[in-house]
């Protein structure tokens, strides 16, 4: 019995001391609380103002990818950004979290450097990998906020709203949900509203990533579905589970983005086209 305890303790110590798995963080908060982070994001937004993009054609495209888990180089996400830049309809790109795979500043620096190469903008949110160990400080250093909006004004005066949420801890938290409700009170001012978060809302299919990764608590999940439907959100984008999945819940399409890991055999991203309607398609890299 003692030998078993020693072996288990040794395994736990090894897991806890390596940089691939944060054992303690699986059970207890190892980074900041969602509430603390959201307060920081909202304060940063207040100081720097809302993102507004003007002069956009009435029909335009946005490229979105997720779970890039940068380890070697950033060539895959760079390809997505280059394709967006080369697309006459392309206006900006989205990276929906899990920039890092392990600890350290390098993944954030890599993403920031490839974003800097292109002429178009890339909007980023954090994922669970970006806040464990000491990653959170680097996310803040390079990308500053993960709870924010981007308003797109088209040449004919239509406005679209992109809402970005922080769900790194598998919850949006009280303050962020309140903020989301406040933002959606102005839903009627916009032609389309696209909401993006990292954590997948659904647990409807299974692969190496879905178990044991976490979802929102059920009560929050149902509240969010109701809020999205009540406000007729045009599109809801998610990542986290490393595969493609689509749901139509009420009037809202929910789209799960695949991952772009270097070892992914079939990496892909989506192109969202906003015009009179909102359409999207998965594209292979």
């Amino acid at each position, binding site marked *: 019995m003692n030998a078993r305890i020693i072996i288990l303790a040794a395994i736990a110590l090894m897991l806890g001391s390596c940089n691939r798995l*944060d054992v303690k*963080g*699986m*059970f*207890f*908060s*190892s*980074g900041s*609380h*969602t*509430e603390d982070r959201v307060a920081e994001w909202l304060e940063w937004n207040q100081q720097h103002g809302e993102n507004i993009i003007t002069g956009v054609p009435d029909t335009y495209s946005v490229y979105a990818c997720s779970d890039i888990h940068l380890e070697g180089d950033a060539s895959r996400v760079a390809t997505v950004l280059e394709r967006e830049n080369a697309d006459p309809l392309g206006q900006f790109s989205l990276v929906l979290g899990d920039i890092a795979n392990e600890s350290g500043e390098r993944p954030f620096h890599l993403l920031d450097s490839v974003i800097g190469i292109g002429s178009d903008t890339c909007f980023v949110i954090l994922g*669970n*990998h970006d*806040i*464990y160990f000491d990653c959170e400080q680097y996310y803040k250093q390079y990308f500053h906020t993960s709870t924010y909006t981007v308003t797109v004004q088209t040449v004919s005066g239509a406005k679209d709203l992109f809402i970005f949420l922080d769900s*790194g*801890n*598998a*919850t*949006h*938290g*009280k303050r962020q*949900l309140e903020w989301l409700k406040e933002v959606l009170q102005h839903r009627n001012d916009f032609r389309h509203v696209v909401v993006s978060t990292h*954590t997948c809302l*659904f*647990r*409807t299919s*299974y692969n190496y990533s879905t*178990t*044991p*990764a*976490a*979802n*929102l*608590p*059920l*009560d*929050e999940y*149902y*509240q969010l*579905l*109701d809020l999205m*439907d009540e406000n007729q959100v045009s599109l809801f984008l998610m990542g986290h589970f490393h595969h493609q999945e689509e*749901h*139509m*819940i*009420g*009037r*809202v399409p929910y789209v799960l983005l695949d991952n772009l890991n270097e070892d992914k055999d079939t990496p892909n991203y989506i192109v969202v086209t906003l015009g009179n309607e909102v359409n999207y398609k998965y594209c292979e890299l």
Partner: protein
Amino acid sequence: MLLTIMGILGSTGVQGQVAEVLPEGGHRSTHEGVHGSTPIRVVGYGFYDYHYATDGVGGGALMADWRVSQTFSLGAGVEYASSNRIAAKLGGMATLLTTNKGQRLTLENSYLWRHYPSLDRQEFTSALQLGWRARHADLHLGLCNRYSAPLVQRSDGGMGTVLEPMNVMFAIEGWWNNQTIPQQWNVGLRWSNYHDFVIERVANWFFSAKGYYTLKDETALIAEVGVHPVGSLNLTASYDGWFMHLGAMRRF
């Protein structure tokens, strides 16, 4: 009704494999403890459940189980949570094996319905799990599928239904006193992803401390207090909330 019949059939189907005699019967609830000879047990408690993101709800739950035979019991329960949801469940539990030390292997089949009137959702969950009760431990492992649907079917969009075909459910309990024999009191710790009227996704856990104290005859006070963090196994967890149950159980 069909689900109930399936549950009864599913559970009675294993009766033939059972040859041992139980020290007690009872549909599995998270509040176990009162031993006795009468076949009906009723559990009632008030609760408060606080979720950080979605606020707290208070309410009450009433459950009853009927020991149909030494090896099979049926149970039913209802829960009302203020302004948030109502829930009901049905289930059966068969004892597959009992050792001479009072340990037992059980198979439980249950059906849970949760109704969120303010959120326009309802969910149906069916669950099948094995349980092992030892002197100081209770272990449960099973699978459930969850089907959720809007209360009112939309005419302007998709059906809005979601099927979660296979969720793992588990519970690990440790008890201070030997629970295979009658005790006046007992206290224990529990780690699980489900409770009486909710089966969360596998990485959304409940940690709780609970216990009972027998007043007289076959009546006992029960209590449980616990926390439910969120994001466990997401590499980083976050505080989500806590809950408290206080009530009584009695055999009739």
